[in-house]
């Protein structure tokens, strides 16, 4: 009762309490102040606008372009039609005309078969390797674990160059391959077409399955398996009924990844298929764009996007909410290794054989080939540094100088390094900012929107993404605010940053989630505004993640060919493209030199990453 008296006194001494009139004006003013006075809201709004502009608008524009008459097709469509009119001409041509079969259906069927075979094979190969490395008592694990992921560092099309060096037949002209030179009659199906494409892609993509599955296996507590043993299950039963279901989500996401990637991949089918007239959907897309049938090309790209979206949708339905078993087991505490017993020598032998043929082999072939003056002649007299430092002999490849003394090489190296460094810095920064938004607005609409938007580039195969940007930025856009970017360095940076956003922002989110929100709240209690909190709390705490995120994008962009394929111009070229064009011009030794140099750069960066950044490369699936 005494309390109540005091309360009354309090209200009397502070007259305004509870007596203010409600003011609609003040409410609106405060609402605006809350919205725009908070830099975080501004950040979110700007991010959403940028994401819409660089991801949604290009996609929408590409879709609408396929329904509009293009200037160059006016004559074909007859009189009375104007550029920009609505038309189903392109879709009709692609889907229901006499060229549909060669333009779309055959390549699509080829691609689907290749993608399916590659996915199944690489998941089997990758999972077996992962199980051996993580759960068995395999010897020399340090060596094997490095050897197994070397394919990841070597771009897939480099491996197809190695394949060509060995199996090339005289049919398409140029110098003969290693086996032909030895007098072996190489059958066509082994030199070109679906079989070499599947083999080369499998030897590349199994590394992804390996990385994902070994991460999942590593997080399983071996007590779960031991419990199975106590319950009386044999080794095979444990593997089938406990281990496999636990890593199933990882296997399924490896499937999405390999399937979409081999659907969209361009380099390997270009090297091993296009010349023999074996088309996949990505080479068909490239060919149509190169033949100035850009609109039809966009329509093909849309079909590619549709297929990868469907694939991801079906997989997510299949995986459902069980996506991350791995985290349930937590860190997994102890992990008891499983003895291979009497199989050990055989398994080690097979693995060494595999590493020798699939991993070291291609690399060795590429390196040796760069030192052979006359291609196909493998003798000591033929050893030469000509393709590295030769000064240009008119009798050899029309006087093209050795790569290291070629000024174009240094321009391209400079371009590549510039592109890679700028994109990595910029891309990492964007990824971290988006990660910050994602981690701080969990469950809010803005956070969900950003997450969804950022995921879109993942759906779009690299070559299609390149096509979109070609369409969007070859003319001035946004009423002239953004000039035509075709052939500029800026466009290459832009496309690389946006395409890698799904990976960089995932790394950024993981990094920012580690910084508890209370650490920031403590800062705002102390009176630190958004920028002070960011500079003095968030940034210092996210430094380590920044570095490893940077390295991941670096490696991935270094190898990038598909994405920039359609965007490079003779004056603005990178190392991967240089290797590609050498190979296209039937100058394999030169392209091999470039490929070997690229591999060295990636290897060094990977080593630095592992030593100083302790980054987990399984987080980056960009290459």
């Amino acid at each position: 009762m005494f309390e109540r008296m005091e309360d009354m006194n309090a209200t009397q001494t502070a007259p305004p309490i509870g007596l203010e009139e409600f003011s609609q004006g003040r409410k609106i003013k405060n609402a605006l102040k809350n919205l725009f006075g908070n830099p975080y809201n501004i950040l979110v709004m700007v991010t959403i606008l940028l994401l819409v502009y660089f991801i949604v608008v290009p996609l929408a524009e590409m879709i609408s372009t396929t329904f509009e008459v293009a200037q160059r097709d006016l004559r074909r469509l007859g009189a009375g039609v104007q550029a920009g009119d609505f038309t189903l001409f392109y879709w009709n041509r692609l889907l229901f005309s006499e060229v549909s079969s060669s333009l779309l259906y055959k390549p699509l069927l080829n691609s689907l078969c290749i993608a399916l075979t590659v996915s199944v094979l690489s998941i089997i190969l990758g999972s077996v390797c992962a199980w051996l490395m993580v759960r068995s008592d395999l010897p020399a694990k340090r060596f094997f674990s490095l050897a197994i992921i070397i394919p990841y560092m070597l771009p897939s099309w480099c491996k197809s160059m190695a394949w060509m060096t060995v199996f090339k037949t005289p049919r398409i002209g140029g110098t003969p391959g290693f086996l032909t030179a030895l007098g072996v009659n190489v059958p066509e199906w082994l030199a070109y077409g679906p079989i070499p494409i599947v083999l080369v892609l499998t030897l590349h993509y199994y590394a992804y399955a390996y990385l994902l599955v070994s991460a999942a296996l590593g997080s399983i507590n071996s007590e779960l398996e031991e419990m199975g043993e106590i319950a009386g299950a044999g080794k095979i039963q444990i593997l089938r009924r406990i281990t496999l279901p636990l890593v199933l989500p990882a296997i399924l996401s490896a499937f999405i990844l390999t399937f979409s990637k081999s659907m969209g991949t361009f380099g390997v089918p270009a090297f091993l298929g296009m010349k023999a007239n074996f088309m996949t959907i990505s080479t068909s897309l490239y060919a149509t764009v190169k033949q100035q049938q850009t609109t039809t090309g966009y329509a093909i790209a849309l079909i590619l996007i549709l297929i990868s979206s469907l694939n991801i949708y079906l997989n997510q339905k299949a995986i459902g909410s069980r996506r991350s078993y791995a985290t349930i087991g937590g860190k997994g505490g102890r992990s008891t290794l499983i003895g291979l017993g009497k199989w050990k020598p055989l398994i080690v032998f097979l693995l060494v054989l595999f590493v020798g043929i699939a991993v070291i082999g291609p690399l060795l072939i590429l390196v040796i080939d760069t030192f052979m003056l006359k291609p196909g002649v493998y003798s000591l007299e033929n050893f030469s540094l000509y393709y590295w430092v030769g000064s240009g002999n008119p009798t050899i490849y029309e006087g093209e100088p050795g790569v290291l003394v070629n000024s174009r090489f240094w321009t391209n190296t400079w371009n590549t390094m510039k592109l890679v460094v700028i994109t990595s810095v910029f891309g990492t920064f964007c990824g971290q900012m988006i990660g910050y938004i994602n981690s701080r607005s969990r469950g809010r609409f803005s956070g969900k929107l950003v997450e969804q938007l950022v995921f879109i580039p993942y759906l779009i195969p690299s070559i299609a993404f390149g096509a979109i940007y070609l369409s969007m930025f070859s003319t001035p856009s946004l009423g002239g605010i953004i000039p035509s970017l075709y052939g500029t360095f800026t466009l290459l940076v832009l496309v690389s940053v946006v395409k890698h956003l799904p990976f960089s922002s995932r790394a950024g989110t993981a990094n920012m989630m580690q910084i508890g929100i209370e650490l920031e709240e403590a800062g705002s209690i102390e009176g630190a505004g958004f920028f002070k909190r960011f500079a003095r709390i968030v940034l210092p705490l996210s430094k380590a993640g920044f570095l490893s995120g940077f390295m991941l994008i670096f490696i991935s962009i270094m190898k990038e060919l598909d994405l920039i394929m359609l965007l490079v111009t003779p004056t603005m070229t990178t190392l991967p493209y240089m290797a590609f064009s050498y190979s296209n011009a039937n100058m394999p030794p030169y392209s091999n030199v470039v490929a070997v140099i690229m591999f060295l750069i990636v290897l060094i960066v990977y080593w630095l990453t592992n030593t100083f950044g302790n980054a987990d490369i399984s987080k980056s699936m960009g290459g």
Partner: protein
Amino acid sequence: MSTIVLQNIDKYYGNNHVLKNLNLTIEDGEFMTLLGPSGCGKTTTLRVISGLEKPQNGKLYMDGELMVNAKELYFAPPSKRMLNLVFQSYALWPHMTVFQNVAFGLSIKKVPKEEIKTRVENALRRMQILEYQDRYPSELSGGQQQRVAIARAIVTEPRVLLLDEPLSNLDAKLRIDMRSELKRLHQELGTTVIYVTHDQIEALTMSTRVAIFFEGQLAQVDTPLNVYQNPADLRVAEFIGNPSINFVSAKGRLEDNVLHITSDVGDFTFGSEHFTENEFPRQGEFDCVLGIRPEQIYLRSSPWHDAREAVVYASQPAGSETLVQIQMGDTRLLVKQVGTRNYQTNQTVYATILENMVTVYNKATGKLIKMAVELDLEAVEMEGSRSSSSIT
């Protein structure tokens, strides 16, 4: 210096109504504890006061100054509220040393370097962790981290100090030490303290007043002694006190302004001078519940005065006290006796209930209708010593 008034505060997380029309006044210099089971809204209340959380409805005043007016979407930022907060997790910045952690707020306020140094050192000295000033939080024990968090909160000399379950991460012994230290700190600094806990012993031993929350609503705001002796309703009565209170079903009837109670444990009459303002039927018989604290029952082995006969159900001697369960008719009562007593199971004992200390609740509403009253000085002294021994 700082009176805090919360008016009609509503807070939702999505569809979850966490704070329901909350009204609370916290006087200047008070040590106010927000107490309740987990999920009752006490931490949310603290965060609303701190400015980290924006309520959807209601107003907040500090020192007569409007800080929150949800209807007009006005929310003063935390830094304008002259308060500081100790987080349950401490939230020490792992990349800063102890000194830098404590100095952060002052450096944001652009206090001169020299002054920062003296003030930080004073705060660290007060918390007895000056020698650790160059260490990083990860190099400190939990108790030391706790002290850094408190030093960081008091160095800015806030008008209000908010503490969110600060002791919950400490081990039992350290918790008792920190309790007395926090109590001293409050007396020395003279700031208003708002303290969130689910531990009733912390609440009763440290606070000047306790606010008890259930499901986002205030059940009672009172002094610790009153909360213990006269819980406002059955929920509070059950929540406060360890071992918990005995509830006894009874029948009540008002005659000539005197409440007549009949029950298994005896018949009582209470005069109207101890009635509360809560409603109960003025005519006829009605159901009520008696609240009897275990230490307000006395046991003897032999008949004495009007002591009622009972049978020992189980006896739990624990050195400093003995808990005895007795059966009286259909009712089982828990009795707490000081010191070690030995009772045999099924032994007949004689129980006396301290009649004035019995509380009576209207069963239909669950509200208190008759307060416990201490009659003479001796009883007061006895109860004082008893209740304090029961809660430490």
